[in-house]
């Protein structure tokens, strides 16, 4: 393995895991001097009783929740973030508790910036490493096992004015505490379990083969790949099994640590473009594109793909590295098909409303996506269109 030119590992998030742990993390809140938390969530999570589960638990341990915002939409937006920050300051809260999936967590990250510093989220803070100092404590309780946002230094927030997704990258928005409780994810139906899980698998695989991969990120990526491929199908078929849910929560968080250190590549780039052009949900788009994106990248990362075959337990020492790489890709393709069988997850672009006439546009957007520089093989319009055709 080639020695990296540069490597950095920074994980400021304390992670606690356990069955029922979301009912009481008052000790950790106390250590963070978070005595007056403000909850950010969405209507679905509220209706499922997950917020109540946490609020009652904290109250029993002497923590009074100062307020709840439960109107986070599917895609977080600048307006929503500003509203959350305003409410947070109005009630005199001192910390954020985000309970939900990626949109909820990213909304809390954005609101934390405005609550602390005021100003205009778009003009003053979008970008990389703009913040001068730490923000209010941010605690995250994920209700899906996919985004990894509970351990990442990034947030994506939609700007209604320019109709673009803005990226905020800063170590100060990384959550201080991630609370992983399998009870919080057991209500996810099979299809959501499937595509959030495959989103996490994509994070791990792209982090592993990406140009910025280091021994630090590889360690997390490999473990995430093992865990997710071993437990996702059972988590889909038996959602109430807390052991499977627990493994998936851990796998997704490990994948989050991996990709926040070595980023994602062409699969995510195409998924972002499919989201922009055809509103294909991010996890579904990743799941569809993953094996084809891997095929595209194989020639430029043969050694890494062979290592992936070992992680997936399909390595054959009689074969060349390239053939082992092909075995790894085939294994992922078969795995996705098995996941699809138990969850009704679509695995073809034609089944999610994508039109062939937009392939050129999707390819152009993919090449403009920030992920393109992390992909091990140079991205081309023709290359992306070839992937799209195969995935159609």
């Amino acid at each position, binding site marked *: 393995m080639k020695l990296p*030119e*540069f490597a*950095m590992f920074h994980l400021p998030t304390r992670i606690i895991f356990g069955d029922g742990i979301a009912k009481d993390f008052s000790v950790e809140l106390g250590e963070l001097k978070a005595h007056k938390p403000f909850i950010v969530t969405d209507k679905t999570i509220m209706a499922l009783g997950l917020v109540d589960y946490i609020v009652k638990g904290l109250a029993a341990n002497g923590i009074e929740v100062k307020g709840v915002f439960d109107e986070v939409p599917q895609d977080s937006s600048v307006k929503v973030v500003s509203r959350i920050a305003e409410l947070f300051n109005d009630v005199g809260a001192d910390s954020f508790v985000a309970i939900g999936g990626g949109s909820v967590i990213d909304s809390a990250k954005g609101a934390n910036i405005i609550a602390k510093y005021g100003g205009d989220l778009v003009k003053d803070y*979008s*970008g*990389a*490493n*703009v913040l001068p100092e730490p923000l209010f404590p941010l605690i995250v309780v994920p209700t899906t096992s996919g985004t990894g946002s509970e351990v990442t230094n990034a947030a994506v927030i939609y700007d209604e004015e320019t109709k*673009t997704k*803005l*990226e905020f*990258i800063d170590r100060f928005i990384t959550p201080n505490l991630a609370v992983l409780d399998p009870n919080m994810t057991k209500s996810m139906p099979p299809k959501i379990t499937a595509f959030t899980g495959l989103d996490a698998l994509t994070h791990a695989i792209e982090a592993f083969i990406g140009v*910025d991969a280091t021994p630090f990120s590889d360690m997390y990526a490999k473990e995430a790949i093992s865990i997710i491929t071993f437990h996702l199908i059972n988590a889909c078929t038996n959602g109430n099994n807390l052991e499977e849910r627990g493994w998936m929560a851990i796998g997704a968080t490990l994948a989050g640590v991996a990709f926040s250190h070595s*980023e994602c590549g062409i699969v995510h780039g195409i998924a972002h473009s499919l989201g922009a052009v055809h509103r294909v949900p991010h996890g579904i788009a990743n799941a569809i594109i993953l094996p084809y994106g891997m095929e595209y990248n194989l020639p430029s990362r043969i050694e890494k793909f062979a290592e992936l075959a070992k992680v997936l337990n399909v390595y054959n020492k009689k074969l060349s590295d390239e053939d082992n790489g092909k075995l790894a890709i085939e294994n992922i393709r078969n795995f996705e098909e098995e996941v699809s069988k138990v969850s009704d997850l679509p695995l073809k672009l034609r089944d999610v409303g994508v039109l062939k006439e937009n392939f050129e546009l999707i390819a152009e957007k993919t*090449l*403009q*996506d*920030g*992920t*393109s*520089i*992390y992909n091990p093989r*140079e991205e081309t319009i023709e290359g992306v269109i070839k992937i799209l055709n195969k995935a159609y």
Partner: protein
Amino acid sequence: MFFKDAEELKKVLGGFFEKAAADKEFAKKFAKSKILIRFNYSEPEFSITLDMTDGENIVITYNDKEKKPEVDMDMKADTAHKFWLGKLNLTMAITRKLMVVRGPVPRVLAFIPVLKPTYQMYKDYLKEIGREDLIEAE
């Protein structure tokens, strides 16, 4: 410090951008991004704005407070010099806060593949203006 004052910085980095802008073929490739970007340098204090919003040309202005850039990049002049020499990895520089990006980060990152040929162009330009001393700078 590689540059003793803003005037020297303007001559070296500004001159390089002007040379690159004059190369129509290169400018067209560079300007495809249609980005309006401002580099804010410290030590010495100076800023260079590249306006590529017409998609074909690079319009360069100095210490421009009028134009509203889509992306602002803050860095020391020495950091910029090392970057254009190809001695600095952009993602590492952003990660370590040697460069601060204000605005859409993906737009900056997507820009990088176009930049690779400029590293040699910068070295050639330094030779052309008799500043070989800056090429080996660490």
